[in-house]
């Protein structure tokens, strides 16, 4: 009895301990980031070194643009690959290879994605650009989208497929009219998770999109992002820039958390 209580207590204590770092991060970021939060942060450019005032609207914009580019590349590829390996050829060498490589890719350090995009896009185009950053992020999130989409498709009841084939539907009709719509909420959850992952990454955009002090006017030019702004400003010797870095952290954490919560709220409970 005593032993049982002791073990229960231990489990509770240890679970609280795991919460501790997470909560301290949130508290630290809020305490340091909150004082500077105002509309200016979202609408203005950063001040020159040593000066004060202004914000990081261009970095928020840049992050959004690069996340969108990565989604444009990775979502169709990921979903269509998942459809192929789960619906058309579940047991084929190609499918096994795709599955294996996707699982490998999830474990690849994000900086490697950056290095690859640097070599493939920056070196060939001779430009740091939002496109290069988007490509790096796309490589990072492609396996996430592919694997969650595959899980989502696997979760679609066999009885729907039987019903569809039973009335004379082709595999194409069954997939597009029945299987994909039913799997869509779960696929969207995967996409939202990918968005929050891509928005928060620094390494892939560090030397692909580089950074910029100005608003983004074209996807072919160096582009600011929140994560790189934090990295750059935190290492500057100016108090105001360090404060801006804290505020940028708060904005980034909020964005990522909101995306996650949104994904859970909108898409998780399947309407059955």
């Amino acid at each position, binding site marked *: 009895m005593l032993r049982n209580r002791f073990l229960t207590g231990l489990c509770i204590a240890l679970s609280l301990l795991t919460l501790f770092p997470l909560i301290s991060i949130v508290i630290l970021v809020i305490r340091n980031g909150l004082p500077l939060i105002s509309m200016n942060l979202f609408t203005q450019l950063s001040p020159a070194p040593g000066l004060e005032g202004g914000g990081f609207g261009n970095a928020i914009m840049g992050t959004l643009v690069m996340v969108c580019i990565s989604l444009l590349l990775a979502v169709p590829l990921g979903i269509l690959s998942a459809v192929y390996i789960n619906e*058309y*050829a*579940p*047991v*084929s060498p190609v499918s096994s290879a795709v599955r294996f490589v996707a699982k490998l890719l999830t474990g690849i350090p994000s900086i490697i994605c950056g290095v690859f995009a640097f070599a493939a896009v920056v070196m060939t185009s001779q430009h740091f650009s939002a496109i290069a950053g988007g490509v790096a992020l796309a490589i990072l999130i492609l396996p996430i989208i592919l694997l969650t989409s595959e899980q989502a498709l696997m979760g679609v*009841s066999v*009885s*729907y*497929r*039987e*019903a*569809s*084939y*039973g*009335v*004379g*539907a*082709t*595999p194409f*009709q069954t997939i597009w*009219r*029945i299987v994909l*719509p*039913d799997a869509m909420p779960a696929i969207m959850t995967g996409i939202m998770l990918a968005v929050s992952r891509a928005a928060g990454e620094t390494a892939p955009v560090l030397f692909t999109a580089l950074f910029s002090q100005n608003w983004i006017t074209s996807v072919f030019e160096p582009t600011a992002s929140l994560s790189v702004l934090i990295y750059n400003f935190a290492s500057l010797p100016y108090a105001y820039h360090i404060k801006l870095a804290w505020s940028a952290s708060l904005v980034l954490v909020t964005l990522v958390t909101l995306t996650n919560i949104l994904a859970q709220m909108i898409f998780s409970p399947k*309407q*059955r």
Partner: protein
Amino acid sequence: MSNDYTSSEAHPIQVSHETARPYELTDVVSPSKTNFIKVDDFRFFYGKKEVLHGINLEIPSRRVTSFIGPSGCGKSTLLRNFNRMNELIPGVRHEGDITIHGTSIFDPSVEVIALRRRIGMVFQKSNPFPMSIYGNIVYPLRIAGQGDRSMLDETVERCLRSAALWDEVKDRLHESALGLSGGQMQRLCIARAIASRPEILLMDEPCSALDPIATAKVEELIIELKRNFTIIIVTHNMHQASRVSELTAFFYLGNLVEFDETRKIFTNPSKLQTEEYITGRFG
């Protein structure tokens, strides 16, 4: 290899007409002259395992025929061959032939898509699509390229009336089908199965998940539907077989033991195995 169910060229099962045994009348248990579906020395394999051992059977038109037998006897497997649903499972093959109106369903000229439109199927677990009641019924028409609104409306009403569901759902046709009760869902599946005006209706234990009241409704419906359809029903419920069907086939361990008029099967079966199963001594 891609799972291409549509193209008859890529069809994985080869029918060899040369090796098919000539049709022998003596093999066939035939209670009726008006045969329609003819199963000819049909063998079926899951991988290396033979689960149907040379079935010969003639099923008449516009009757209800029930398949009975203990679990694993092959009755559902045979049923799912009539519309070639078994081909969705990798690694299956067959020998022998099944003909409908004298045409082999395995003939390379037969498109499996067209075949399945001619043969409706109702499954053990009701499986309406997660869409509206209306959307469920017009699905077979829409995938066939039918987009005419009035034609779709007409079909929805006809099918729901045939499935004795119209009065219950006519005011909520555009609500989700998943809000229906279990019995209503199964009747909706029957309505969907007859939407493309098939000749044959296959039912794989359609009442096994329903309560007695819903079961009674579906049984009434089956008796009503046989005027227009040839119905084959697989059932574990022998009372059901005796209530709804005119002909009964008893399967055991992959063999067709006896096929006769339901009345005879249940009162005076000619095989000992049938009698033992009917009276509950095994199975």
